[in-house]
């Protein structure tokens, strides 16, 4: 775990209300695994007061990327940061996705909205040749990272709630279609998902119903991000667990919704 001041290389509008920030953080980058996150002190002062958690979106040559939606005060201040400014980062935090043994398997990544953030890094690390990413969004202008996922060697399918692009409906319905129409006698499928709570719950249900492996990355409000405050707990079959420490990635079988 590191605490560093990282220089912002660029921080630009990406799409919709989503922004993209690249910082220089070689040591952090080397230590990070897909699904882990950073806890970011966005400004020096009291506003925002607490750190804000963001997934590690991508790493390349000493540079670390964050993809974030502007949803409130903290992310608004974040979007005002300029290249040359510094961010105070703590990370890598949490335990990330387990993707050992995915080599021969079919892998499906399911992203809802900004849920693409941790999945790009994951997609790049997964060695399987049968990778598919389902990108769900409300509407076409909010579909994120299609190109980036393709470049990572994944197949990409898109769903929009309003049908303005790709499959019309929820990304979990798309997932259901794919699973049920998938070739018989296929090998095991491994699911990885990140997105809004209800979507993740549905992914877990689908996984259970079809007896598939699934890992989902959860969000909870965080006080500390390092396991000290017990602010971010979720219910699991093995008792309460901290999203920031035992998570943010949990196995579908473990969670109690």
């Amino acid at each position, binding site marked *: *775990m590191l*605490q560093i001041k990282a220089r912002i290389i660029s921080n630009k509008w990406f799409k919709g209300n989503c922004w993209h920030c690249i910082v220089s953080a070689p040591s952090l980058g080397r230590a990070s695994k897909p699904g882990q996150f950073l806890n970011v*002190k966005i400004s020096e002062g*009291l*506003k*925002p*007061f*607490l*750190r804000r958690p963001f997934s590690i979106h991508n790493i390349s040559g000493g540079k670390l990327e964050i993809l974030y939606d502007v949803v409130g005060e*903290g992310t608004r201040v974040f979007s005002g940061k300029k290249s040359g400014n510094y961010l105070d980062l*703590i990370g890598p935090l949490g335990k990330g996705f387990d993707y050992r043994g995915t080599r021969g398997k079919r892998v499906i990544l399911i992203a809802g909205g900004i849920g693409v953030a941790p999945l790009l890094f994951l997609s790049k690390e997964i060695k399987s040749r049968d990778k598919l990413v389902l990108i769900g969004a409300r509407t076409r202008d909010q579909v994120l990272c299609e190109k980036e996922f393709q470049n990572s060697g994944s197949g990409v399918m898109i769903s929009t709630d309003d049908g303005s692009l790709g499959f019309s409906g929820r990304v979990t319905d798309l997932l259901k279609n794919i699973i049920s129409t998938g070739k018989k006698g296929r090998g095991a499928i491994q699911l990885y998902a990140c997105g809004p709570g209800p979507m993740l719950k549905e992914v877990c249900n689908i996984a259970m119903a079809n007896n598939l492996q699934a890992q989902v990355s959860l969000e*909870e*409000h*965080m*006080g*500390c*991000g*390092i*396991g*000290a*405050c*017990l*602010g*971010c*707990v*979720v219910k699991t079959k093995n008792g*309460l667990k901290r999203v920031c*420490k035992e998570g943010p990635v949990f196995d579908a079988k473990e969670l109690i919704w």
Partner: protein
Amino acid sequence: MRVNLSVKIGKLKLKNPVMVASGTFGYAEEFKGFINLKKLGAIVTKTITLNPRRGNPPARTCETPSGMLNSIGLENPGLGAFLKDKLPFLEKLGIPIIMSIASEDGPKEFIELVKRLDKLKAVSALELNISCPNVMGQKSLISQDCQATYSIVKSIRRMTAKTLITKLSPNVTCIGDLAKAAEDAGSDGLALINTLSGMSINTEKQNPRLAAVVGGLSGPAIRPVALKMVWEAYNKIKIPIIGMGGIIDTPSALEFFIAGASAISIGTANFINPRVSVEIISGLGGYLKRKKIKDIHSLTGSLIYES
């Protein structure tokens, strides 16, 4: 110039007056990657109850202007698991470990807890958390009532020679009276303040930001209230005060000493800057040197004012 930062609370000697506050430092292990824990004056543990507690449902935290609300609800593994899983790590640090304890069952549980802790060398002192606002169902706190405070402290005092620190709630009409009650009952020191009762609402959803509706407010927002309570208690009692509430840097720590604290505790600020406690230890030393004050004691209650 060498300055003295060591202080005494009851029989407990601290090499410096900077502790970390209960509930904001986990069981210390979470911070070992950030600081040399041995440098701390003392560590106060998350509050422990006799039996494990699940705490409140999430969301348990939310940000407020210059502060945060929490409604953890005293989640903890219970005494047994604490002694087995958490205390050994703490003990090895070789610095004073102050164990914060609370009761879900009035005096009875406190007595049971103290019985089992009294002989443990690894526990340097006990902090009686009679002021946690986050236990659902309870109508009022022990530390909101002078008589109840007096009697609980008194009965614990009779059972142990360990240093006793009583942690008080700011949600009272007159902190001086409560401080006096704790002192009269034999408390060796006071921890001031626990969180202020507060709430916050998501106006789009019309629901509370904390699932438990009400939580405890901490951080710089409450510092003026905390300082005033430390000052008021200082003017009323003689036992040492551990000041806390919104300390985030050396100047804010100094405010508490000048108001009357003998030691301080860092809470919420640990979440934002995990290194803040050791930064303040060196900041205090620097201030004393610059001001040519030989001993941190001379700073306690040194407020200059016309009355």
